[in-house]
């Protein structure tokens, strides 16, 4: 393998060679096993770098970070206070109340949120079967996925409204407040998509917001949400 070709391999993998240089390298690769091997090894190095999981610090630095968070201005609680004018106790209580509300709903109304067998017609995450996607443009697939998420969300919301009657009004209000945060994000995404309906990016963004809401509804009980 000469330096002439070796120096071009990385650029080739990064798609940085001029078309004529890329064509020349590809022609060379058909007759140079050494360069083919090197190319494969470089690809392996790049793949390793991309998926490298990292190495945790020898000493857990979280306790020191945690101590600093409570003395740091400009964190989430400060930002929310500035935006909403809500008192800090309410901001801190919001996730607690959300968890408590969901726990109450799970107890009072069965396991609708947890997706256990005891609850009939439990909405779960929608997945479009692969067969349905064949031959369909990606934007259409994305929107089809969004429609399925919407159906699952609607069912979850119906279950929610049917089970909030017995809950403390403050809990319901706080739960709704939390859901409204993500609903606003969904509404923003929907508006953006309406203004540019052919945008695959916006369609994916809209679907992602829908998926986040569904995941939030389904997985909230898994999270320990006490104020640290």
């Amino acid at each position, binding site marked *: 393998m000469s330096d002439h070709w070796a*120096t071009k391999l*990385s650029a080739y993998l990064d798609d940085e060679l001029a078309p004529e240089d890329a064509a020349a390298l590809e022609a060379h690769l058909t007759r140079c096993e050494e360069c083919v091997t090197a190319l494969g090894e470089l690809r392996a190095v790049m793949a390793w770098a*991309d998926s490298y999981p990292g190495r945790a610090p020898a000493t857990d630095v979280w306790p020191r970070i*945690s101590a600093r968070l409570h003395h740091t201005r400009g964190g*989430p609680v400060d930002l*929310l206070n500035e935006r909403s004018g809500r008192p800090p106790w309410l901001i*801190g209580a919001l996730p607690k109340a959300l968890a408590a509300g969901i726990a109450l709903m799970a107890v009072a109304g069965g396991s609708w949120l947890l997706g256990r067998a005891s609850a009939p017609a439990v909405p779960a995450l929608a997945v479009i079967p692969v067969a349905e996607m064949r031959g369909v443009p990606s934007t259409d697939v994305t929107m089809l996925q969004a429609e399925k998420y919407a159906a699952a969300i609607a069912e979850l919301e119906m279950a929610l409204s049917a089970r909030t009657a017995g809950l403390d009004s403050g809990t319901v209000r706080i739960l709704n407040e939390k859901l409204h945060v993500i609903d606003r994000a969904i509404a923003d995404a929907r508006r953006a998509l309406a203004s540019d309906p052919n945008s695959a990016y916006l369609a994916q963004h809209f679907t992602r917001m829908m998926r986040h809401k569904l*995941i939030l509804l389904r997985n909230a009980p898994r*999270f320990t949400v006490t104020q640290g």
Partner: protein
Amino acid sequence: MRDLTDRVEMTSADADAVDVEFAISGDSRAFERLYRRHVPRINSLARWLLGDDDVEDVVQDVFVRAWQKLGTFRGESAWGTWLHRLATNVILRRRAKRRTRADRFSGSLADLARSSATTSSPGLRVDLEAAVDGLPERARQVFVLHDMEGFKHQEIADALGISIGTSRSQLHHARMALRKHLEG
């Protein structure tokens, strides 16, 4: 709703999205979960861009900064991507402050040649992580920024104060050195 199945498992990105929602509400336990999912790679990033000095301090700074800036996260990319950009900025600022000292270890292509010459014995799996440790500093920084953090050569050149050509050259030589440490 028979077609709704439970086949979608919660991915790390999904877990991040949910925890970011909670963390923005002021839930530091959710932020701790984000920390635990991402600290290994942030720690390695800091170690490889800075050397062993100050790594724990800068890792702390990264996550405190992320907490401060959490409200500005718009969800346009995965949270992990956002965090890595923020982390790289924090780390490079720290590096700039001590550039004089770092310049002593900027490395040369001659160093690279020596690094790649110390290859593994055939059939012996050599840790690529250790091989990255062994790269000259400049090559290691370019490799980490480009292949691990997704920076463009122009961005790397601006961040490290080098030319685009140097960035390309260092990347090529780093990869060529590392490939010799692949499993034999």
